[in-house]
């Protein structure tokens, strides 16, 4: 049988890079196979994907040696258009892939480019919209769609070509946990229904493995490090070695001292077993010290009787109350569109409430301008590229003080201090464009720290980062919180983040506050999980299976895992 995809001694170096990104890749993927490619950022996994769909070498230039064959065609000798009939690519950023003014047009885009007659086009669009449950959304603009709907539109837009290979580049990056879980299930259904070859590139292993996968490729440093079944991968030491996070239920077993080699049915939390599993987990949990509850400190921000809705929009808050205490590391969670970002914008003064009062340190915020509030409350956007406005790092960090007319000596001292706290001091004279994504994010934080904020609001502080970078960022925020006494409000979809680092979780629902509790409590309440578009963790399922208290078990495993993080 001809392979669906074949890499034969492939080495690739981008024109803009000094070193190759991929070294001597050999890989054969058979038709109908479902393959997962994992690896940390910079491991070369996305480059591998771009060689399958032909973006390399046809749109991204560089030195290619060896031979990539896809659906019997030599990729280098073929064209993007010819390859696109065999390989459908779903990109990471749904807003960039969605080029139509409405869902229907976007699904039809490839057919439009083939100059297919409109009548046939409408028939096909209706068919694929029905398959992907988008029939009600056909006339909507992308701004009116949820992240999951945009991704399904992208899938419909490539499935309409009826190619035999589907390629997903980090399909979970832009989705909340519940939507991500559904997306993985949908990919699996498509795989089985149409017998397609599916390649998924992702670093969130546990989420992808909620559905069966035939084979996993582990990438690191531009090379294929391992090529094995999910079971063999989980039994092995590879995840730790390349800095990827093992599934939480396995961490629990490891914590309890259970040898990997003795674990059977390892790939699924619902079936995983080991000799005396229940007894050993129970004994382990009994030996764990109960978590120390932090003493509640004085209120920092009090929100009272807040009412707000956008003009012509739904009422988001009605008589809403919330108190953020000094020293809190608070995770704000909830489904998309429920008002998480709006709440942070009400606090920073970007929008004004219809009624109600916000008091910071006892002072009424209504009297303060955006700039005055920013002296106490720092706001960090999700995309650092939307915040950075100077060419050079130290100028960027100094900006807030310069605009507040601080004297040169103060500026210099504070900038140096902020850069040191953020680990950016060695780069102070670099152009910002030379920094990595994680460094840029820290640069935005440094530029706010110079103003000595008491409260930091961070919108998805770890979005799109692999475990190593995620851990570095969160440890850094924790240091700010514990050693510099900065209160944190984290807006997030990431359940690991919430479990591991938050001291308190506030769940927003469409009716306002759903729950205000310690993080582990949130994930042991199925109704809250559903309402906030979160997903149950594997720890919860495992605890239930062996008859342990899910909340206590989750808290203990997370506490243990934090010590093991890279």
């Amino acid at each position, binding site marked *: 049988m001809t392979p669906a995809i074949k890499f034969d001694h492939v080495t690739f170096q981008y024109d*803009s890079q*000094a070193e190759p990104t991929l070294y001597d890749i050999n890989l054969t993927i058979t038709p109908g196979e479902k393959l997962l490619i994992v690896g940390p950022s910079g491991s070369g996994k996305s480059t591998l994907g771009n060689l399958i769909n032909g973006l390399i070498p046809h*749109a991204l*230039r560089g030195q290619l040696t060896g031979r990539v064959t896809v659906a019997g065609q030599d990729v280098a000798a073929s064209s993007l258009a010819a390859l696109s009939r065999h390989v459908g690519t779903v990109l990471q950023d749904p807003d960039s892939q969605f080029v139509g003014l409405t869902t229907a047009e976007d699904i039809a885009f490839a057919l439009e480019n083939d100059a297919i007659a409109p009548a046939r086009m409408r028939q096909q669009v209706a068919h694929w919209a029905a398959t992907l449950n988008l029939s009600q959304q056909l006339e909507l603009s992308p701004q009116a769609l949820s992240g999951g709907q945009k991704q399904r539109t992208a899938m419909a837009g490539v499935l309409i070509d009826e190619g035999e290979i589907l390629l997903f580049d980090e399909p979970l990056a832009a989705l909340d946990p519940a939507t991500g879980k559904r997306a993985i299930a949908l990919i699996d259904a498509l795989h089985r229904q149409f017998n397609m070859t599916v390649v998924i590139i992702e670093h969130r292993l546990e989420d992808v493995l909620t559905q069966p996968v035939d084979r996993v490729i582990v990438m690191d440093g531009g090379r294929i490090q391992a090529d094995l079944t999910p079971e063999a991968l989980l039994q092995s030491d590879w995840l730790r070695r390349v800095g990827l996070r093992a599934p939480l239920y396995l961490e629990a077993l490891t914590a309890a001292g259970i040898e990997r080699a003795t674990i059977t049915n390892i790939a699924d939390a619902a079936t995983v077993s080991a000799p005396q599993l229940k007894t050993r987990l129970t004994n382990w949990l009994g030996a764990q010290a109960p978590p120390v509850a932090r003493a509640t400190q004085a209120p920092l921000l009090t929100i009272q009787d807040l009412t707000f809705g956008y003009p012509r929009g739904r009422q988001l808050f009605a008589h809403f109350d919330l108190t953020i205490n000094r020293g809190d590391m608070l995770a704000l969670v909830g489904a998309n569109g429920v008002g998480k970002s709006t709440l942070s914008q009400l606090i920073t003064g970007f929008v004004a409430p219809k009624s109600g009062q916000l008091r910071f340190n006892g002072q009424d915020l209504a009297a303060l301008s955006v700039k005055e509030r920013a002296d106490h409350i720092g706001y960090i956007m999700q995309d650092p590229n939307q915040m950075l406005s100077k*060419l050079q790092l130290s100028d960027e960090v100094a900006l807030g003080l310069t605009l507040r007319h601080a004297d040169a000596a103060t500026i210099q001292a504070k900038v140096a201090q902020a850069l040191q706290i953020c680990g950016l*001091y*060695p*780069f*102070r*004279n*670099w*152009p910002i*464009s*030379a920094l990595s994504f994680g460094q840029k994010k820290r640069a935005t934080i440094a530029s706010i720290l110079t103003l000595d904020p008491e409260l930091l609001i961070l919108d998805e502080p770890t979005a799109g980062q692999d475990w190593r970078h995620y851990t570095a960022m969160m440890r850094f925020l924790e240091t700010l919180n514990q050693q510099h006494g900065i209160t944190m409000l984290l807006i997030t979809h990431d359940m690991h983040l919430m479990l591991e680092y938050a001291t308190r979780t506030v769940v927003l629902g469409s009716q306002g506050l759903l729950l205000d509790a310690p993080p582990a409590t949130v994930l042991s309440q199925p109704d809250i999980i559903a309402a906030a578009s979160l997903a149950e963790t594997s720890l919860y399922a495992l605890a239930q299976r062996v008859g342990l208290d899910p909340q206590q078990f989750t808290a203990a495993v997370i506490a243990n895992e934090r010590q093991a993080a890279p």
Partner: protein
Amino acid sequence: MAKRPPHHDPFNVRTVVAIGIGTAIIFILKRWVSIPTGFPNTNIDTSYGVLGFLSVLYGPIAGFLIGLFGHALNDFTQYGTPWWTWVLTTGLIGGSIGLFWRWFDIESGRFGLKKIISFNLIQLLTNGIGWALLAPTLDILVYSEPANKVYVQGVISAISNTVSTGVIGTILLIAYAASRTQSGSLKREE
């Protein structure tokens, strides 16, 4: 003939997207981002700085169409009718600056003093001819407006748009060229 690098093709898919996104940016800037000069009713339109920058980056076709569409869309939605003579002038200015894109070769990451001066001479000339001569003359021919009024308006626009292109365009070009340099040349300083 050697194959040109993709960013030097005159009308590839990237150019199409650049026209679309560029038009959207110009539209937003014309609507929201102008700098008051201190003289009543005279604002510096930041979109001309960005237009000059995008024209050097994406070439004459993109420059012409971004200017034309951006200005027309803004007039159309804000005033109900495009003031065609000025719309055309904006397009021609983008197109003229864009003619020199291969020479500037901004993707190379080099935008030194010589290129900065050339860029500003080119933009001074195109803005000067465009606003002080072309637009008002077309206004007289097409709309029969009084000559002294349109020439005064033209000269004011020429000055303010030259300032916009000179300051904003130059800074954007320097910033863009800086972002093209490789990090290999940078050293950590402890």
